[in-house]
């Protein structure tokens, strides 16, 4: 269309990525119910444990790091199908694959937006729930840091599972089976950090390992996710 070929200026690749993040955030904002149900799930699951185990505070203090981390893990997993599901269904994901901008970058942008909407609220909510388990302020701080490092890791690794199971029968449960084993190191180091802090050993080692895993995931997960997406869209 010659009349419109000069329309618009070129966007830098970073600007496109930012546009995608903004798009996903806008979509989440206009469809709040999905975002909020995941948060409520987190709160409810955490509350289930005292109900199932008993209100004895000394016991609850001991299981708190594990409970909060497992709940965060499950809540993240529940939100994974939102990462690519809607875009896959209406064809916009396919359009992203056909973009001249590298797909890996677009995927990273989507994962970032997903974390901002699904992971970050968990980081902010967890200390509040930690109070229900009588954790002291310093441990709550460690909990926040562990989740701050851990939830992006969960989003990144989960994205691979979400991409592999796009449009597949039984996708939701299947994602859990694929992703949960891969989440275990994050769980061990994340919950372990808080436990180490409580027992006075210091959370430094655990948190460094968690940070290392996050760095690894930032490099490799978008790559694997992109490959999985292309396979799903063939």
């Amino acid at each position, binding site marked *: *269309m*010659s*009349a*419109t*070929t*000069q*329309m*618009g*200026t*070129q*966007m830098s*690749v970073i*600007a*496109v990525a930012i*546009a*995608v993040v903004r*798009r996903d955030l*806008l*979509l989440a904002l*206009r*469809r709040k119910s999905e975002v909020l149900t995941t948060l409520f799930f987190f709160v409810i699951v955490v509350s289930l444990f005292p109900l199932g185990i008993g209100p004895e505070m000394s016991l609850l203090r001991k299981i708190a790091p594990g409970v909060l981390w497992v709940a965060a893990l499950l809540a993240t997993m529940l939100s994974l199908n939102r990462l690519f599901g*809607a875009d896959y269904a*209406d*064809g*916009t994901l*396919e*359009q*992203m*694959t*056909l*973009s*001249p*901008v*590298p797909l890996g970058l*677009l995927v990273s942008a989507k994962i970032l937006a997903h974390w901002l909407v699904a992971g970050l609220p968990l980081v902010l909510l967890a200390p509040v729930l930690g109070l229900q388990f009588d954790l002291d302020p310093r441990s709550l701080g460690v909990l926040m840091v562990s989740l701050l490092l851990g939830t992006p890791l969960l989003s990144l690794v989960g994205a691979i599972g979400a991409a592999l199971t796009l449009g597949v029968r039984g996708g939701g449960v299947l994602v859990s089976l694929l992703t949960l084993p891969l989440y275990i190191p994050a769980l061990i180091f994340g919950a372990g950090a808080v436990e180490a802090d409580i027992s006075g050993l210091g959370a430094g080692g655990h948190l460094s390992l968690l940070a290392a895993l996050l760095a690894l995931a930032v490099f490799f997960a978008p790559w694997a996710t992109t490959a999985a997406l292309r396979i799903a*869209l*063939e």
Partner: protein
Amino acid sequence: MLTAANLACTRGERRLFAGLNFAIEAGGWIHVTGENGSGKTSLLRILCGLSQPEAGEIRWNGAPIRELDDEYRKILLYLGHQTPVKEELTARENLQISGALAGTVLDEADADAALEQVGLGGRERLPVRFLSQGQKRRVALARLLTSPAPLWILDEPFVALDAAALEMLAAIIAGHLAGGGIAVLTSHQEVTIEAAARLTLRIAA
């Protein structure tokens, strides 16, 4: 110029077509016809680079598209069966994000002008979920007006359009071809589009 040599396609276990060749120059269009399930959509997806052919090669201006990669995607615009619009975004926002994904900034005035041209004037700021099916399709088609891509690959673009919209789309495509673009499209219906050259590709079992 788009050429295909010895293309073969297998879907699942069925061989859909083999030994497919064509060449089309700037200003021309290809009408792909065939029965349902004959492989028209598969062919278009192979031309986009979404799937890999079983055999054969596609070249754009002499270079294999597999090597061109991002360069090829820059000059390509694809519209498939789905209507790639987000329901929660407005028509204008949808156009703008499509532009961004293609790497260009689309300002509001240009987006609105395009929407006006496809008959959605006054509805630019409406979330797409309030539009009818045909109107949603027009939002997707508005991309044709804002994109500088010379190669259009359209799968059943005339479906769900009324007579007026059909004429409008045919005119848009004709304009694109007149400007030196190429179009490859499938359609059940017979369509008249003014063009320098037209190739009919019939895929038979």
